[in-house]
């Protein structure tokens, strides 16, 4: 580790840890990064290593505990890493990672079946009030981004929902397609397949998304609510700052490469570059908010 001031980095293949299975969204995205990686990183290959399990926690732990020499980088998901670090069974801390860049911002939406009588967010709120806590809303997992979003939404809209947790977006989508739940929180990337069967009521991002230009933001409808899943790349804490700098610069170039952006569009992942510094700021902010929510709903005490 002594030799480096970032110069000549990388001079050998770099290992990339993916905390999900091969072929999953994280992997597909990282494969696009890989295509451009060599161009900006001395023609060195990126070696993929899959460490799936426990909602990413196994792989994230691996990243946090890797040798901080810059030759192990990892794909991280936010808020997964933040919520997992807040859980009573945390195996890493928020500050065990140094972020290189954010590459994807996948906002959440409130979605109902096309056959539902709910047509707008106002209908949705009215229905939730009418059903008085019995309205079933599908989310992915508990203690997850979706769970936090649902809790926040309850506060903001002043209603109560009956959360039905699913294992993943696939079975959640099936349940909404089949009309087994009233509504769900879905991510843009996952629901784009079903634009004909689903009705999107509102998107939890700052601006409308160009894939769904007719779907209003919560902001427009008078509710200050944003929620999303972000993908980024990180290295373990204590990595040489010069190497971190080199990685950050390289990723900035990759993420602004027009061909890269074209391919991201093709695979249906909403590209949204943020520099390592800005990504870190966002993480810190989310962390504080989530901590308050967790305390408020005493989510940690149940365990």
């Amino acid at each position, binding site marked *: 580790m002594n030799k480096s001031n970032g110069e000549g980095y990388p001079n050998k293949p770099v290992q990339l840890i993916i905390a999900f*299975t*091969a*072929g*999953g*969204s994280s*992997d*597909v995205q990282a*494969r696009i990064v890989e*295509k451009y990686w060599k161009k900006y990183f001395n023609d060195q290959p990126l070696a*993929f*290593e*899959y*460490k*799936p*399990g*426990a*909602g990413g*926690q*196994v792989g994230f*732990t691996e990243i946090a505990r890797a040798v901080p020499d810059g030759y192990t980088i990892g794909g991280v998901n936010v808020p997964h890493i933040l919520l997992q670090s807040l*859980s009573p*069974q945390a*195996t890493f801390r928020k500050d065990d990672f140094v972020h290189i860049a954010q590459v994807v911002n996948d906002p959440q939406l409130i979605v109902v079946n096309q056959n539902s009588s709910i047509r707008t967010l106002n209908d949705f709120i009215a229905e939730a009030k009418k059903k008085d806590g*019995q309205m*079933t809303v599908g989310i992915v*997992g*508990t*203690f*997850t981004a979706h769970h936090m979003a649902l809790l926040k939404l309850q506060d903001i809209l002043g209603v109560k929902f*009956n*959360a*039905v*947790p*699913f*294992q993943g977006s*696939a*079975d959640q*989508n*099936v*349940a909404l*397609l*089949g*009309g*087994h*739940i009233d509504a769900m929180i879905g991510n843009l990337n996952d629901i*784009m*397949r*079903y634009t*004909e*069967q689903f009705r999107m009521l509102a998107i939890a991002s700052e601006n409308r998304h160009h894939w769904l230009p007719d779907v209003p933001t919560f902001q427009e409808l008078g509710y200050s609510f944003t929620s999303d899943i972000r993908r980024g790349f990180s290295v373990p804490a204590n990595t040489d700052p010069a190497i971190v700098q080199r990685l950050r610069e390289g990723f900035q170039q990759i993420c602004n490469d027009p061909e890269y952006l074209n391919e991201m569009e*093709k*695979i*249906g992942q909403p590209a949204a570059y943020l520099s390592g510094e800005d990504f870190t700021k966002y993480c810190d902010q989310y962390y504080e908010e989530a901590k308050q929510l967790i305390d408020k709903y005493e989510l940690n005490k149940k*365990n």
Partner: protein
Amino acid sequence: MGMDVFQPLLQGFAAALTPQNLCFGFIGCVLGTLVGVLPGIGPTSAIAMLLPLTLILDPTPAIIMLSGIYYGAMYGGSTTAILVNIPGEISSAPTALDGYAMAKKGRAGPALAISAISSFVAGTLSLVGLTFFAPTLAQLALHFGPPEYFALMLLALSVVINLSGKSLIKGLISAVAGFFVAMVGMDPITGIARFTFGSVELMSGIDFVSVIIGLFAIAEVLSTWEAQVTPVIRTKLTGLMPTREDLRETFPAMLRSTVIGFFLGLLPGCSPGVTAFIAYDTEKRFSRVPETFGQGQIAGVAAAEGANNATTSGGFVPLLSFGIPSGPALAVLLGGFMMYGLQPGPTLFEKNAPFVWALIASMYIGNVMLIILNLPLVGLWARLVKVPYPLLAPIILISSFIGAYSVRNKMMDVWLAIAFGLIGWLMRKLEIPSVPLILTTILAGMLETSIKQTLSMGDMGIYLLFTRPISLTICILALLLTISSLYGRYKKIPLPGDAEEFSSESFEFPDVIEKKRPVLVKPRRYLHVPKTVYLVREHDRSRNVAKCGSLRMRQAGEQVQR
């Protein structure tokens, strides 16, 4: 749908038959057969490993190849299950029950051939279902919500009773142990760690592959080593190909397992492993000689292998129609679709029709390739049992370790496989069947998820199950099956040591027929006894015990003449 399918399908065949697509389809089928044969290394890891190839290949040949790996693996999975009692894939675990028993009797050839034929028949018939009714069937599957899944899991659980062997209590012990194994790791919904003892690695749970490798492969090697016998090798091979009678007897099983495998395969989460067990159990219920199941009943082999192939075609229905993967292998394949920007879903049939139809056509061609590939291999594989066990055992062990490691690239999985090997060895000593354990390990995740979801769907609690027509029907069916299985267990011909006690050796009737006169007894349990099947009781005066079983006289007669 209907007639308008033919033209695109023909165009699909034209596309699939181009040299390039044909070639990649063939590579996929060969690789699939190979990963199927190797225990542990399954289609999921193989597809994942080859996924980067999609960066170079065109979408059609690449997806054709990756799909070939998936359904090809179902052909290969039965090979080691039959020859050495080690299922190459979990979906071939029920195949081992009768396939290995057949191999012990020197009938490895017919068992292997029947599994290839059954795979082909079921694979092709279910493709017809995929071709003509995909969108309609996908709609049908949507009627299954969490309560229906839970009911379905209850139904699958009733199979445990029939797989319990001699003692129901021991079967249940095994089943409960399976739930415990599945419990290790994170709660599928809340993410709370259970029984992980603070280990990060255990948080991701115990993988099925380690369990089957341990219970089947390693335990088998241990038991054989301990017994100092070489069970398989001594038997002569009696004919490589199935007789006409074998075919006649297994044909209905193939059709039934196609229907079961295909329709259950439409439901995301119903893996080939689950459907193979259900089809096996169904066949046992349909059979006039249910007590021969587990003793080398060829229909059992046909049912399990037919069902797992039909399930793979069934799984393409929700994948292509809704972009919903039914299991891990299809999830990786979906990743392949995504890399090409092919969004599966209703629009796929419209926007990428040439691709979809080329893929479907390639599966018909692939099934033909696989049977051509697998039938001649039967002779080669069957001879494998002649390899001396001291040579075979280390190969089995090494491939087991590699298989266990390859799933998640973790040494822990190898240690777990070894631990399960010891557990499996112990279970054999205590005569606790391992199959219920495997079945409940497969079912536990969905059982738990679906009940939690059902309970959170309203304030009706578990009664929700009985308010929805589909789940109510399935619940009633599960109850009936349970009752009939229990009734079957206790209403058997009351003799000490019932039919299940027949080991395959004691089935060598020529001896029996000559030494001890068999007595034809009136069938009590089975109303329809075909002409060739008789219930036979033999009385061993020296030990003063009576055994009963059934045998086909024709077959016995043949052997007597020799």
